[in-house]
């Protein structure tokens, strides 16, 4: 089934994810090879430093009849931090930042969704360094449909901002660098 942009815009985000699914609800497994967790943080207030976490996995699901019950759960390997500088990554994995030795996983689990058109406000809990806080991810639908290999995929992009001190990261990077902006590119394959 082909979906064009016009059709999509008339449907809700999560209904789209269900498109072509006769049964109620569908579970998707995140395709790590087409998904990424990216972060950027100000460097000295002069530029943006861009990095990513290479290791992530997770699932999302929703019920066509009850879009608000949709959910997503993502797990990130903190040691997979990649800022294109081995020594810096080593520092980011240390106790000054991610403490990857003691906290190898960071996770996000949604608790509720507000859906409007192709966008959603995803409420959920982010756990990092053993600290769990409520955060909001602003998500946009990117696309969905049959892939060329017999599967069915759906993809989204989400953004949020994370205050480092909220998770016990107090290493002083300067006044412009107290929060990290996160961008999640998520593609799932329907189970």
């Amino acid at each position, binding site marked *: 089934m082909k979906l064009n942009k016009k059709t999509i815009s008339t449907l809700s985000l999560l209904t789209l994810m269900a498109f072509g699914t006769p049964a109620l609800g569908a579970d998707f497994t995140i395709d790590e090879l087409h998904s990424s967790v990216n972060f950027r943080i100000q460097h000295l207030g002069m530029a943006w430093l861009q990095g990513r976490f290479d290791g992530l996995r997770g699932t999302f699901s929703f019920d066509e009849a009850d879009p608000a019950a949709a959910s997503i759960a993502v797990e990130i390997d903190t040691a*997979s931090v990649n800022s294109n*500088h*081995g*020594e810096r*990554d*080593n520092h980011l994995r240390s106790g000054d930042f991610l403490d990857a030795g003691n906290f190898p996983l960071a996770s996000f689990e949604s608790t509720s969704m507000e859906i409007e058109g192709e966008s959603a406000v995803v409420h959920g809990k982010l756990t990092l360094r053993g600290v769990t806080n409520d955060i909001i991810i602003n998500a946009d639908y990117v696309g969905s449909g049959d892939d060329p290999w017999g599967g069915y995929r759906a993809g989204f992009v989400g953004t949020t901002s994370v205050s480092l001190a909220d998770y016990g990261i107090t290493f*002083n990077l*300067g006044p412009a660098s107290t929060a990290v902006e996160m961008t999640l590119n998520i593609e799932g394959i329907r189970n």
Partner: protein
Amino acid sequence: MEFWSQVNISRNTIKLKNTPNGYGLVARALHWGMALAILFMFGLGLWMRTLTYYSPWYNQAPAIHKSVGIILLVLLVLRFAWRLLNPAPDASYLKPVEQKLSHLMHMGFYALLIVLMLAGYFISTLGGRGISVFSFVEIPSIYVQKGLEDIFGFAHRALAYLLIAMVALHALVALKHHFINHAKTLLRMWHGDR
């Protein structure tokens, strides 16, 4: 004697090579130069880890540490080659067990230093970047394995403490031979054969 093995300065003869009575200038310069550099590196290594992000030394101190480290690695290889080409001074005044222990200590220093320095090299290069030696020479990364930096970092630190413990022992034994046994052990390395 070959012309290059001795340099005449007025009436003193400076011997470059080792003799049965003492170490030559090359061995002594390498020994004391590297000893000073290693102590400096230990202090620098501890200190640079305490620097805050806004310290003027935050980038500079590790750069110096890495540059000196690469130079020390080259010197270590040269020193070992020099040692192989150049018999150490006569040690028969020591008891056999002392000779064995001192040989073990010296070989231990070489083994420990090479592993320590390679661990340091890998901390900096496992991510794929090389090491710039005082901005003159770029030592490339030869092996990339992200995430292994932690293990090499731990090894580098642990071996550094072990090295300093060995240095302390080495120095104590040298002082013991000098002041208690009144042996020429320290002088052979201090002013060589004279």
